[in-house]
């Protein structure tokens, strides 16, 4: 590998990656209250994570040394391997915290296979869309693309890891860039809004409002002599909403389990049981909110010291940032992520190869979903679905998975430039 190759590597992205990972380890160290223990010690999470970072960096270098065309050529094989791993995991994994996501072979925990399924799914999707005469306007293409996403999502869902399963659907964003109609983005957003509205005001009230709206539409139509077609369209949309809202009502009360109902209720403010289900979110908000502008100082967080927030080294690691580094710290993390994402988008757009562009957008989709939903969750803007903050949360599979995801892109970017 010549110096020319290394010059082509997108170093700002690498720097942001290293900065976030190191800052993450610092926060894990604080969150587990390991003062007095060396951060190098393998007996604490931070020390473990440091080892994982080292492993990740080695893997990153290895990825850089592999021929970029390897990932293009073997995209489907890697996908098949990942799906196989998911199935094996599903069949053999022990239950840990309600989920069966850990692949254990010969008594050794190998890792959470879902983390590796992410980059495999992105690779397969890129490979598929890079194919000759493939257009997302074709129904067949949509179905195949959907199948590539749904398969890992379904397998992860069967592992009882809802949060990670949802993440696969984020790939809709990458597909949108490649021509998937816009309503695949806004329709879920609209339905999500209706969902929350129904839960807030109840199905009957919501339906009454919609029926009244239909009446208003027809009144306006006759008053202002609008096109009947428009009124019919509006009525149809509203009727569909009523149907959907009934479905929501039914699903919420008949299908969801009580604890899931509670989680959603707490999120949208229908339940305010601080000591009960809302406790985690409340303590998370208190922890971040009490950090103020510049935080309480590293290792000085009273909420963190007191272990008030559960899962604080993993899903709620952002709380430590908020408490000990304040808005300066949280703002920096959000801006760094945002910078990294936009940077990857811009780099992806510059690609001559559709494969690399689709891969880049796939990376953005997954990274963005994790970043946004994780932080939104700690800020009480989204239900607690239990997905890690990339590069930050404690967990070797997660760090290694995101590293591979990112560095394959960096390799594709730098490598293909080098080759072509």
């Amino acid at each position, binding site marked *: 590998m010549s110096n020319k190759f290394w010059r082509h590597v997108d170093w700002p992205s690498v720097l942001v990656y290293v900065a976030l990972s190191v800052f993450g380890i610092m926060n894990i160290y604080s969150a587990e209250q390991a003062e007095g223990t060396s951060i190098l010690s393998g007996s604490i999470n931070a020390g473990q994570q440091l080892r994982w970072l080292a492993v990740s960096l080695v893997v990153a270098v290895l990825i850089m040394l592999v021929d970029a065309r390897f990932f293009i050529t073997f995209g489907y094989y890697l996908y098949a391997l990942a799906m196989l791993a998911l199935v094996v995991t599903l069949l053999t994994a022990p239950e840990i915290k309600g989920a069966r996501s850990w692949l254990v072979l010969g008594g050794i925990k190998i890792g959470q296979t879902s983390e590796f399924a992410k980059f495999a799914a992105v690779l397969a999707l890129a490979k598929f869309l890079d194919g000759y005469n493939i257009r997302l306007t074709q129904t067949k293409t949509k179905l195949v693309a959907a199948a590539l996403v749904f398969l890992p999502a379904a397998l992860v869902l069967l592992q009882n890891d809802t949060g990670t399963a949802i993440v696969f659907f984020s790939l809709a964003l990458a597909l949108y860039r490649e*021509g998937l109609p816009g309503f695949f983005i806004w329709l879920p957003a609209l339905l999500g809004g209706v969902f929350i509205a129904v839960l807030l005001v109840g199905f009957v009230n919501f339906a009454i409002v919609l029926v009244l709206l239909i009446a208003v539409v027809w009144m306006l139509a006759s008053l202002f002599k609008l096109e009947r077609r428009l009124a019919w369209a509006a009525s149809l949309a509203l009727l569909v909403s009523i149907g959907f809202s009934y479905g929501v009502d039914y699903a919420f009360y008949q299908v969801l389990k009580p604890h899931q109902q509670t989680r959603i209720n707490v999120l949208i403010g229908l339940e305010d049981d601080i000591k009960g289900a809302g406790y985690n979110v409340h303590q998370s908000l208190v922890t971040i909110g*009490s950090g*103020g502008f510049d935080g309480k100082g590293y290792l000085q967080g*009273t909420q963190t010291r*007191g272990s008030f927030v559960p899962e604080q080294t993993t899903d709620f690691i952002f709380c430590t940032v908020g408490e000990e580094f304040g*808005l300066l710290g949280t703002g920096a993390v959000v801006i760094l992520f945002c910078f990294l994402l936009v940077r990857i988008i811009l780099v992806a757009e510059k690609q001559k190869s559709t494969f690399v562009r689709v891969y880049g957008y796939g990376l953005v989709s997954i990274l963005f979903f994790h970043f946004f939903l994780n932080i939104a969750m700690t800020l009480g803007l989204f239900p607690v679905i239990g997905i890690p903050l990339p590069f930050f949360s404690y967990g070797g599979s997660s760090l290694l998975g995101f590293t591979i995801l990112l560095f394959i892109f960096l390799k594709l970017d730098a490598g293909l430039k080098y080759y072509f």
Partner: protein
Amino acid sequence: MKDRFDNRFRNVVVIVTVLSAILLFRLFYIQLVAQQYKQFAEENTRSRKTVLPARGLIYDRNGKRLVTNETVYDLIAVLKQIEPFDTHKLAEILGLDTSFFSAMCQKLADEKRYYTPTVVLRELGNDVVARFQEQKFNFRGFSVKARIGRRFDAPVAAHLLGYLGEVDESDIASSDGYYELQHFIGKSGLEKQYETVLRGEKGYEYKVVDKFNREIGSYANGQFDIQAKAGTDLVSTIDLELQAYGELLMQNKIGAIVAIEPSTGEVLALVSSPSFDPSLLVGRKRSHNYPVIAADPNKPLYNRAITGAYPPGSTFKPIMALIALQEGTIVPTTTFSCHMGFTIPGLHVGCHDHPNNLDLVQSISQSCNAYYCHSFRNTIDHSKFANTEAGYRAWYDHLTRFGLGGLLHLDIPNESGGVLPTAEKFDNIYGKGRWRSSYIISLAIGQAEINLTPLQMANMMAVVANRGYYYDPHLVRSPMPQGLGLHHTAIDKRHFEPVIEGLAQVFLSGTARWYQLPDIAQCGKTGTAENPHGEDHSNFIAFAPRDNPKIAIAVVVENGGFGATWAAPIASLMIEKYLTGQVARAHAEKRILEKDFIHLPDTLTIPTPHEQ
């Protein structure tokens, strides 16, 4: 590379940046604008720990300790931390039945004290603590906590010292947040009256705690901590030796002794008998001993010295004499005839055998009833008053100035004011303006409707000893009592000498002549209070020395018969003890100590002086 959808990259960038901006706005709001999260965090992590200061000690007037602090150990349980344990083993260590634990768990659960450390057993013995500590790893959820408890240095003065007990709901409610559950508070006596002095001021330490309320460290380097202020020691007016001697003399007798230093109002001894060892009602022993003591038919818990009310009988006569002198009804040389009593048509008050036509001094030393019936009648029926009622009101007013008819506001709780019938009361009985002195003549000799507490009797004697005034009787010298009242009677000073001469003659030639002291001029008055329920009560009031009196005393022995028989020698022995520091009259002392009114029939056959 250009393609059909390359304009869509802007939309993706917008989605990413707008949603990131939403996160930033949300962070801005909760970290900078909203204040409630900072408050929640404060409350979450700050635990205010109450620091209770050492309680003030109680000393007697000579600096001898009456009540001390000592470290005691309580057994604490945290319900949710209890793990299965060997109940037989722990029950054996604690000396309990295993049923204790199920009852304990039930009680804690009922009170919803799942995580709150709660005292489940008070004042473990030192050996119990040692054995528990050796094996405490077997009993998770249980611990032993040190606390400052009270120790009584001498087994005396139970009634006046009082005791501590756990606060109840009303204590907490009325303390404006001072007391918390399981705190201790003075429940009676000086401990109750001087609670705020003795307890000091509690302090606070702020600790950083985790969500299990475990302390992690001090909060803000302790800069918000408030130091506890130690309680103030009390120096009582009580003379421990005199008090102990009084209790000794009163053993196996029912009654009371109150001794007062006339010049100051300081109470030197406040004995109520039967009494009990105050340490019997402390800690774990309390629950066992209290029912036993409370069930005693002789009511040891009842403080007869300030709550018991007895007809004063003839001890009332010195004051009757003073009022008659002041109202000009008699002069010292006035004599009244007595033929075994006072007789007017339709009324006879008996008297005893004594020479006829006694003057004032002799009327006191011989305790002539007729003399006082005459002088009482002449006083309230005097022509200078519009009617009997006006005369009675004047008489009543004199008595109130001796501290009768109401509370003396002694500085311990549960004082009684005795009974002094008002004119209104007779109006109600006989009709307005329809009663005469003859209807109420028994009052002249301290009988019928009148009842005085032993404290009032002693104070009445102190007034005479002071020749006309008294300070509010009180039990504490330090801290200095505030607003101590000085009360003057409406009796001219010149009238006291003849009465005091009569009181001196009681010892020299009168009803208490058996109890003279060689170097001390004692003045006193016997009294026998008619008791409709049994044997008469034996009363005696006295002061000594005659000049510059140091002690005024009242003694009541229930069912003791003549005042001269038991009350008088007890008073005289107390005077000797206090003024000389010892008792030389071993025979008299022995006779008193051996007398048992509670357990044995009266078998003593000693000559008893006669009276009424």
